[in-house]
């Protein structure tokens, strides 16, 4: 059974090959494009469920291609790049990318991101509840339990957790979190985030040295670890 079609846009045949082999083994259907032109053709002729985009394309920069992809397709986009600079990441995420993976990467991690991205696709049914290990979050009922015990969260702490849960497994940029939790005028106030994430961690018993739930991506944002 096909788990959905994935379009791989990368000019490196080797990268395409191992992605194809690996994803194929996990039941995905694969189409490939070696440049921006082929990608846009493939997008319209054969709409995929997920797009994997390399930023360093021969004919156009991936960053510039993102808005065009967004114009013709609502499918989640995972950006794949050797560019490790936080600013690049934030830029891609702000331009509509669903997630950002830096090359080189391990396949298990990558597959987790793919799954998380595909879950967003079926947005409507998405997770009113989240559970990792002994942590359960019930968004609709505003209930958080850890090992069966109810955790009391302030309104803002819960709101923050809810946003992370909505994007579980994917990185949410600082700006996005601040916008959604504190409102658009606080997009720059990253120190709020740090404090609230700290409080949230304390209450959830999460060790920042070895996070189980909330992972930091310095300079980019936070991610709720995939169930």
């Amino acid at each position: 059974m096909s788990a959905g079609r994935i379009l791989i846009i990368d000019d490196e045949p080797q990268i395409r090959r191992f992605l194809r082999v690996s994803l194929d083994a996990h039941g995905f259907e694969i189409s490939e494009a070696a440049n921006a032109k082929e990608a846009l053709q493939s997008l319209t002729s054969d709409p995929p469920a997920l797009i994997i985009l390399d930023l360093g394309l021969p004919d156009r920069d991936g960053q510039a291609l993102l808005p065009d992809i967004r114009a013709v397709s609502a499918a989640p986009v995972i950006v794949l790049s050797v560019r490790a600079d936080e600013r690049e990441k934030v830029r891609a995420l702000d331009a509509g990318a669903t997630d950002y993976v830096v090359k080189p990467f391990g396949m298990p991690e990558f597959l987790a991101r793919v799954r998380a991205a595909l879950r967003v696709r079926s947005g409507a049914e998405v997770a009113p509840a989240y559970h990792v290990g002994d942590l359960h979050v019930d968004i609709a009922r505003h209930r958080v339990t850890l090992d069966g015990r109810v955790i009391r969260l302030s309104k803002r702490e819960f709101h923050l957790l809810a946003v992370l849960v909505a994007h579980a497994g994917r990185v949410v940029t600082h700006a996005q979190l601040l916008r959604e939790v504190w409102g658009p005028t606080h997009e720059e106030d990253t120190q709020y985030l740090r404090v609230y994430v700290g409080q949230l961690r304390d209450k959830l018993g999460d060790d920042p040295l070895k996070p189980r739930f909330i992972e930091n991506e310095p300079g980019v944002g936070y991610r709720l670890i995939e169930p």
Partner: protein
Amino acid sequence: MKIFLGAAPGVGKTYEMLSVARRRRAEGVDVVVGIVETHGRRETEALLENLPVVPRRRFPYRGREFEELNLDALLTRKPQVALVDELAHTNVPGSRHEKRYQDVEELLDAGIDVFTTLNVQHIESLNDLVERITGVKVRERLPNHVLETADEIELIDLPPEELTKRLREGKVYVPEEAQRAVDNFFSRGNLLVLRELAMRMAVERVDADLQSYMQARAIEGPWPARGRILVCIGADAQAERLIRLGKRIADRRQLPWTVLHVQTSRAEELAEQQRERLQLAFTLADQLGARAESIHGSSIANEVLAYAAARNITEIVVGRSRRRLVQLRLRPALASVLIEGGSDFEITVASQPHEDVRTEAAAPGSVTPNRLRLRPYVESAIAVALAAGVSWVLDLYVQIGDLSLVFLFAVLISAIRHGLGAGLFAAALASLTFNFLFTDPRFTLRISDPEDLLSILFFLLVSVIGGNLAARLRTQMQITRDSAEQSGLLFDFSRRIAGAVSAEDLLRATCQYLTETLEFESIALRAYAGAGVGEAIGAAEPAPALIDIDRGAAEWAATHAEPAGWSTGTLPASWWLFAPLGTVQRPLGVIGLNLGAKHATLTPEQQRLYFAMRDQAATALERILLTEDVKRAQLVSESDRLRSALLSSVSHDLRTPLASIIGSATSLNELGDNASQSARRELASTILEEGQRLNRFVQNLLDMTRLGYGALKPNNDWCDLRELIGRARARLEEPLHEHRLEVTVAPEAEIIYADGALLEQVIVNVLDNAAKFSPSGSRIAVGANVQGEDLVITVTDEGPGIPPAERERVFDMFYRVRDRDQRRPGTGLGLAICKGFVEAMGGWIAVRAGQEGHGTRVEIALPRRDPPRNRLHEAA
């Protein structure tokens, strides 16, 4: 250069030049016409046919258009021989050079041979002779040194009769406005004289050629050891004539020559007009090929003799000065002193022509205006009056034998303060006053007592001698003070520029000093060999603006290593006088003074000071540039060292993991299904681990380049230090798995203001090192706490430690601590990157001994900042 020399216009110089040129062209020489005036002569025009011509340059000037030699086009065309007619021609203002011969010199410098024409009356040293003989003043003059650069001078001779015939036939072009003068000029007598002069010129030239030929081949000849001719000039109308005379003598004798002016204290009081005259004389001397010098001294004769003795002078030329009766009595004429004192020298005394006397007599006020200055005399009179008063009082109360001593005092004071004139005046006045007041019969000028008469006579004598001595003392003092002042200024200047570290600093300091001392706006420009001059640097920002002609002059000065611009022969239309720093081979820069804005020229002192400062600045600039060169060379060798270290590092550290990866992958491929489950897993994890190691290495190289470009701008924000340590640990899972990692972060150190990504990389590198250098199973402790103003992160391992001597060097790029057995894997970049990153974030990193002297402790300190809690609570 070949000069076709003629006695007068119309003898056929241009015709001959073109004929020769055609012959050369037929021989295959690249001959090009730069500028040839045919004056409409048909035969000449016919010769021009088939010769390549560089189009002339058109100059609009005062509403008319002039055509001049297109120097730049000719320089670009670079023929073997260029034809340039009329060497003595004066260019239209606004041309690069004032005179055509300067254009020609530039052509010659560029390696282009030049054929040119010249009429004998234009030669500078013959100028006044021609003027005297023909009565025609020739304005276009050619300095003699130009003539000396000619390889060949060909005399174009035409008997006067034939020339007159050609004139009558209208074959000679004559401008109408000059018709009358020319009629006069072309008289038979004049033509004969000019022809004679031209022939003599050519013959002298042949002589000189022969002589230098014989000397060059050590053929014995009748000439004595070479000497030098010294021409002494004053700031008077005679100077120019003396210089021309000197030139003729020097030419005849085939000797180098010097023009000397001795400045006594009085020269400082020279009138503006005289100063200018001296200036002109020096310029003329320069043009005629003399060395011009001005020296200080109290006695002209002594200075001249000393100078002559020290410089192999064989002949001295002086003018006979017009003297007043009084002066004649008091001081003998310079010429006679020289003749008496200078028995070793041949001394030529030039007589003064009458008209000069007339001009000077006609304008007595202009000669020595300081004589008209009343103040010294008034003050002297006051001094004498005071002396009289004091004497009067003394006479009333005390009986003193001789009161004349009091007057002598006044005389000496006057002489010291105001010089000899005032001293003599005071002496005369004092003797009269003394006579009037104190000798019997009193209040008359009569003297009854012969003893009094004697005493007054002696008083006069003593005061004249004393006054003279005092005045001389004053002169000496003045000179000493002046030269002390100048050397003081120079010393001050050298101190000021000694502190300059960059060429720009130095040039700016030079400008400031020039502006302060000479009181002209000044400017400096760097010059580069073959690349013109750089940006203008002024005493202050912004630098004075230069127009094209100024830059042209600056460039010319730099490339030719000669002054250019205002008051020089090159581009005098520029307001700036530029003096070069450096040589033709290695131009360093130019400094310029804006003399044009004040319509000024430099006095000899200013000039001396200017050029002395120029020399000092040039030396200092050379020093700075050399230091820069050395530094650059060091940098180059340093980067060479880094490059080779990088290469060896890349070849080793990239290849090792690649070998494992390729080996494992090929094994997997080859074994295929035969591989056991565990073997397959092992090979795969080898590939993974080695790949990750490679990735860390590449990350290091990337970080290094980020640091190297200096473009690293930390993106500081509030981060949780524990998160960063956690991420670092996760990234180093494999290298760390055999160590016990203990993390203790003090609560006040949890929140840190830093660039999270950079700090994470720092922690990764330090931890990676700790893991690499300490035995497996040992403990690695990571701690963080606040120490004063710093937040300090420590990483302590239980490895072998780093010897104190090497603790600084571990942060050098590609440095590895020497190990007893072998070298550890690693790039030697890790700690260098840490240092770069930590310093970029405003902190420091250091290596110390670990606990109880064992192992290594790395300390990373970052400035501590209080997290903005208050604002947060308001917002929340």
